[in-house]
């Protein structure tokens, strides 16, 4: 059905997609030609200046290499861009849409893919796709258990890490039970972003992984019959810590930067981030105490990939694909992993890189607060999106109205 819709909608260069990747490989030059002179409206969350700066850098590279301009549309929430595409579809605008490229993953991707709002498959046709570490980083093709099927292209890996200030927390708790005890023993010194914020829900899922009887069930759509019993330990955990949270659980930071600011202000002692390099980068930028370090829980923490996707009605589809490919370029990937720039983990397979490209990665100084790849431990796969949506909604039901 996607295929048919797609056939109806595609024109020009994109028509080639219907014929499979062989034609694509030959026609990449045609895509580059079509992209030249286009301005790609990249809708990306705009709450972090370092990410904005990185996107600006990618834009400069895209213009220099391919004559493609990038205009970042800074969003307060990725859902704004989704809503925009929905509104366009509802209004019958099947071409020339405002959104060319979306920084996306998880539930936004699941919703858009299901609603037929995405162009594709295109990711496998990108020249740099062969460098992507599909085997070692299964999250690049399984987005919250949803097979990406080429409807989005990865550009960064993320893994949940905890950050703490050595000056106030000499020994960080590396088990879930230890964390719970620490929160209760240090009232007001821990919090998490307010669900349904992405990082906040990730924290809930991390706890769920640790307290659930059979965490394997998280890879399947949730089963109504067993759901309540399965998540009961999660609510028990949260109930226990709730009164000891920052502001006694009467308010929560809005998102990851707001949480990071609380750590920088020393309002909290332990924080979380989906970017293992965040703390080092913030220390380097002078925004965070030099005594901050990071840790992960025994048994692993949740990891996932960030993707870019192209809406079905994108006005500058060729340009968007060129940008998606450029994001997989080893030089760009190495830059993104540089803690002084972003500190995002690469999606590329180091073994697939040529020596020059590999040297770029080997030469990176990961920074004082960043765990070495080996110390990051096991990366747990994201649960099925049905769990994410449900526990976020249930959280709002339980804690969304302050007592």
């Amino acid at each position, binding site marked *: 059905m996607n295929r048919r819709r797609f056939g109806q909608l595609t024109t020009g260069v994109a028509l080639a997609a219907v014929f499979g990747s062989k034609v694509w490989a030959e026609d990449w030059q045609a895509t580059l030609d079509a992209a030249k002179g286009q301005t790609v409206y990249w809708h990306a969350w705009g*709450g972090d200046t370092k990410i904005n700066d990185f996107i600006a850098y990618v834009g400069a590279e895209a213009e220099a290499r391919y004559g493609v301009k990038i205009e970042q549309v800074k969003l307060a929430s990725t859902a704004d861009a989704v809503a925009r595409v929905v509104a366009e579809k509802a209004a019958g605008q099947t071409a020339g849409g405002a959104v060319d490229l979306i920084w996306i993953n998880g539930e936004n991707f699941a*919703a858009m893919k299901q609603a037929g709002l995405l162009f594709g498959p295109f990711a496998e046709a990108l020249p740099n796709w062969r460098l992507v570490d599909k085997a070692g980083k299964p999250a690049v093709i399984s987005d919250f258990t949803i097979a990406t099927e080429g409807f989005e292209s990865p550009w960064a890996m993320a893994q949940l890490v905890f950050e703490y200030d050595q000056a106030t927390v000499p020994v960080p708790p590396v088990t879930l039970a230890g964390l719970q005890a620490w929160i209760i023993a240090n009232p007001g010194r821990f919090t998490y972003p307010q669900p349904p914020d992405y990082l906040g829900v990730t924290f809930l899922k991390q706890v769920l992984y640790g307290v659930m009887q059979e965490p394997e069930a998280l890879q399947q759509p949730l089963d109504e019959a067993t759901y309540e019993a399965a998540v009961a330990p999660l609510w028990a955990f949260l109930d226990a810590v709730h009164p000891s949270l920052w502001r006694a659980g*009467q308010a929560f930071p809005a*998102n990851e930067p707001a949480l990071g600011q609380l750590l920088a202000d020393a309002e909290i002692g332990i924080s979380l981030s989906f970017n293992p390099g965040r703390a080092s980068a913030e220390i380097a930028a*002078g*925004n965070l105490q030099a005594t901050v370090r990071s840790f992960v829980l025994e048994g692993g923490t949740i990891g996932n990939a960030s993707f870019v996707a192209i809406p079905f009605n994108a006005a500058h589809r060729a340009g968007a694909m060129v940008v998606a490919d450029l994001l997989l370029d080893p030089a760009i990937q190495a830059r993104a992993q540089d803690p002084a720039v972003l500190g995002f983990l690469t999606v590329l397979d180091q073994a697939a890189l040529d020596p020059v490209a590999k040297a770029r990665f080997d030469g990176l100084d990961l920074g004082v607060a960043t765990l070495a790849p080996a110390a990051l431990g096991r990366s747990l796969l994201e649960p099925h999106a049905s769990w994410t949506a449900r526990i976020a909604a249930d959280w709002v039901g339980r804690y969304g109205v*302050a007592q």
Partner: protein
Amino acid sequence: MKHGQGGLGGASLLRQVPRVTLLLLFVPVLAGLLGTLAPAFGTGEADWWAAFDSLAAWPGLRRAIALSLASGLVATVLSLAITLLLVASLADTAMFAALRRLLSPLLAIPHAAAALGLAFLIAPSGWIVRALSPWATGWTAPPDVLILNDPWGASLTLGLITKEVPFLLLMTLASLPQTDAARRMAIATSLGYGQVAGFVLCVLPPLYRQLRLPVYAVLAYAMTAVEMAMILGPTLPPTLAVQIIHWMTDPSLAHRGTAAAAALVQLVLVVAALLGWHLAERFARAAVLRAAGSGRRWARADPPLRLFAVAVGFVVAGLLITGLIGLAVWSFAGLWQFPAALPASLNLTTWMKSGPDLARTAGVTAAIALLATGAAAGLVLACLEAEHRFGLTADQRALWLLYLPLIVPQIAFLPGLQRLTLALGAENGVPAVAAVHLVFVLPYVFLSLGPAFRAWDGHFAVAGAALGATPAKVFWRLRLPMLLGPVLTAVAVGVSVSVAQYLPSLLIGGGRVETLTTEAVALSSGGNRRIIGAYGLMQMLLPSLGFAVALAVPRLVFRHRAGMRADLRAGSSGRTAR
């Protein structure tokens, strides 16, 4: 129109302008309302009641409704009370002149910037706590107390008051000359009434008649404010207006109906609150009559009330101004750890890094503001000229229509307007955003320019006509140049209104049109105070620039015209003295 002499066509066109202008205000609001409400009643196969069921199932609904009502009503009552107290107890004093000079420019400050400044000030890690720590409080880390985003909406209410008092104060000062206040006060004082009592009994009744619509606008705005509530308001749950925005942009796409149902509830709430307020006006009237009948003079109440008014006035102005200074300091701050009262170092890093973005965003913001305000000023001048030439009078109904976009909550009609502009295939760029800004800018430009235009001395026109000038020539050569000051002031007001718009820019611009205000609000969720400070400051500077031009240009143009300069001094806020 310049050669309007030439045709009846031009004249009849001019005659239609007031009607067309009112349609321009009325149609988008009505169409937007219908567009918003359509999904609430289900479209296609969707269940009529499903949207309302899902709304009712939201656990925060009751609290969100209560918050919307409480913060709106409390903010309106207190703002009005503070404004009237200031005018009643301090009018014609040097202190009042000082307060007025402090408060008037604050009207131009966008709500978002004011909220951001206030947040910097009152947060547990904010300036007030820093100034007192650790020497007075003993705190070396920010205290774990809930001030910002408190579940009761107290900081939101405070923020609303700091912005609405300047608005109501200026509206009051504009209405006061039409109430014969001086003579009424003279009589009341000669009968031994205290100043405040005399004001309430003699001046307030005619004054409130003029203030009614502005007060309704304040009430409707305060109940539905989005950007201020996003920055200062509660989050568990947020106010209804903020939750509607969350639903509209929810990734699961299933909440559009819920959002529309909630928008309908919000609209009903505002209408109910306005009706309740209207009812309360009657009680207040009865109370004033009873007080008058009692014969008490309340003269001894004046000194404490005056003291209180001065204190409250300076606190309101002080909060806002200190908050804005805080924005500025943060934008230049190097490392600034708690509890230092000032940054360890100042640098230009933030401004250098975000300079290009800021400049581009400011450019877009200014372009939208000038487009919208230019169109608004043209329409308003044409309306007023038509009113003058054809002897039309603006009746109460026209005034209501003028206030319509200010009273109908933006959150209730903008989502529908967004759908409509998309359905019409309008390119959602700068022109579309400017066109929607026009709906909000025009009423303010009219309110600002109307009194001065009507107060212009008609003898000049008679003299001009006697010398053979056509009505058009009188307008272009006499009236417009002589009203340069008020026109520029009205334009500056329009620019400040346009710069401050958040929802219209966000929704109609489809995220592609970035203004200083949308950027500042988007950044405010991230907590990076330096960059927030820079955007907040720019947001404030742009309207200030408009007012600076409005002040400077007439003084430059009229530097050889002593009479015009005297006029400027007499009516610096745009009202020519008669």
